[in-house]
């Protein structure tokens, strides 16, 4: 019916009773069958949005449409959604089978026990938890509980699956494994999924697209790679990327970009990348550590404070204007702490932001 905008959120607002404005005018849409990540630091409002989609919270204003129909006044149980909670919320007194069967044995759409069991077992097979059927959640590992939670969410054959930080209670190695499993599982079932996380790597690896939130506002709604290559603003540039981006305070005057100890001519920049006119004034020049490298004719002179090994690469740490900055170099670099070096930026890869964080270049 409405596959491009299978889930549509329009001008959504949420103001809590205490006056806190958790969500400020948020609009986005999700394509049918997509896995979309809602990404953001804690307290950015991503879980609030998920709760409103589920009907656990009422929006202050705005509309939510599933498959073209508004669901704002629909009870959670009638929204045809599945929900996986951060702590899984499994019923501790029921066995795995009873947990998975539960949604089929309550409410208006109750079905016969043997039928319910057959459906439950089908989804338990998909999530590979058949052999755990008679165990209680307390006896299971984190990863197993996770699968039970997903099986329970899927058993009513919902149209939309909502997952709230489902991996945050798992240890690092398991997290990598399960996130791949989740992606292949939801793709296999073909269900439209919204996945909340605060972990950018998780979002980048799992999501068909990512919506990044901060302070209750969408910062960027885009494909994963664009958060690196074309961040909308200063916040996005700084939130995404590991190691984090380097920021230099600069002044623009007389056709030059001036920092405390280097200068770049505006004419050297790629003129096609300007989003708007670069007027004289103060700005922030940002560059990812992989795009500022040691070079004899570099613009920036730096004194190396420390060299840190991270797997296949090394990070050179240096201080510029009292702020720490980084350069990402390969493993074999001869540079040692306390060396004085020159660094060169790839000017077609730098970003320029206004002090308010708006992107200029």
């Amino acid at each position, binding site marked *: 019916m409405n596959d491009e905008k299978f889930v549509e959120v329009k001008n959504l607002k949420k103001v809590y009773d205490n006056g806190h404005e958790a969500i400020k005018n948020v609009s986005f849409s999700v394509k049918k069958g997509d896995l979309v990540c809602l990404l953001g630091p804690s307290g950015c409002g991503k879980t609030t949005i998920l709760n409103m989609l589920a009907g*656990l919270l009422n929006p202050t204003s705005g509309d939510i449409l599933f498959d073209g129909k508004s669901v704002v006044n629909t009870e959670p*149980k009638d929204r045809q959604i599945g*929900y996986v909670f*951060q702590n899984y919320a499994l019923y501790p007194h029921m066995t795995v089978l009873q947990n998975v069967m*539960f949604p089929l044995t*309550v*409410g208006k759409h109750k079905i016969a026990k043997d039928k319910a069991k057959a459906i439950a077992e089908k989804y338990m097979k998909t999530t590979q938890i058949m052999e755990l059927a008679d165990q209680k959640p307390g006896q299971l590992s984190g990863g197993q509980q996770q699968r039970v939670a997903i099986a329970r969410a899927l058993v009513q054959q919902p149209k939309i699956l909502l997952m709230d930080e489902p991996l945050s209670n798992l240890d690092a190695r398991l997290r990598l494994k399960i996130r791949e499993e989740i992606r292949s599982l939801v793709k296999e079932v073909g269900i439209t999924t919204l996945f909340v996380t605060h972990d950018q790597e998780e979002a980048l690896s799992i999501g068909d697209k990512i919506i990044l939130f901060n302070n209750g506002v969408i910062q960027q709604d885009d494909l994963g790679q664009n958060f690196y290559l074309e961040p909308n603003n200063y916040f996005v540039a700084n939130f995404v990327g590991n190691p984090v981006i380097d920021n230099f305070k600069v002044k623009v005057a007389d056709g030059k970009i001036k920092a405390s100890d280097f200068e770049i001519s505006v004419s050297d920049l790629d003129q096609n990348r300007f989003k708007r006119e670069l007027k004289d004034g103060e700005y922030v020049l940002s560059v990812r550590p992989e795009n500022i490298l040691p070079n004899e004719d570099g613009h920036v002179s730096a004194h190396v404070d420390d060299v840190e090994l991270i797997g296949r690469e090394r990070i050179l740490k240096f201080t510029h204007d009292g702020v720490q900055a980084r350069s990402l170099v390969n493993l074999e670099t001869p540079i040692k702490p306390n060396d004085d070096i020159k660094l060169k930026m790839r000017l077609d890869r730098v970003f320029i932001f206004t002090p308010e964080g708006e992107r200029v270049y």
Partner: protein
Amino acid sequence: MKKIRWGTLIAYVILVIFAIITIFPFVYMILGGLMTFQETTKIPPTLIPKNPQWGNFSRVFAQAPFARYFLNTFITASVTTIVSLFNALLGAFAMVNLKFKGKGIIQGILLSLLMVPGEAIIFTNYNTIARLGLLNTYIGLVLPFLTSIFYMYYLQSYFGSISETIYKAAKINGASDWEYIWRILVPMSKGGLFTVGLLSFISGWNSFLWPLLVTNEDSMRLLNNGLTAFASDAGSETELQLAAATLTVLPILILYFIFRKQIIRGVVRNDLKG
């Protein structure tokens, strides 16, 4: 080392003395109930009856309708426990899981009522029951106690410790509130409900002032009132009084020894008062 051992020894001696002081009245009650009249009033006092007088108990049953007292007490304590637990369960569920206007006010009123001593309202309640013509009835005995703010408050703290995502999950899974209560909340809080039930039953069993006010017919008396009446009537027959006291205390004592862990844990958990 020597010093520490002395401390421990003194501590043990004091503990044992107080333990004896605590247990002695119970022992004396049970043994005294099996003595002859002469043995109970002998100087120096007897502790162990020569021939246990099991007949004392049948004489108690013959002189006063103790079977009836038992039945009355059992009915009143059970009904009070079941109904007040049910009401407390529903109320605590609403206070913990539902959002509504006026919740804060209700909570405030209930909490301040918790401080009202029962003795301050028991006489006016008597007046109400008398006006309703319910003196000497089971309904009159139980009516003011069919709800317990205290147990509701206790259950609130119990339910509050269950993660709220469990309720949200149940809602999304399509369960109604009623289904949530009976299929999730109750099975998950079995321990707490059981403890509250036990304590409620015990305090119902031991109630005295209220049944004293609202019953004056022998057939409607509860155990403790029957016991005091019996003690006055059988004033001279000490051994029968002790036998009757044993009858009153023993069922609860047995219940206590079976469930001592749950009872003590329940009392400590919320500083439950009797």
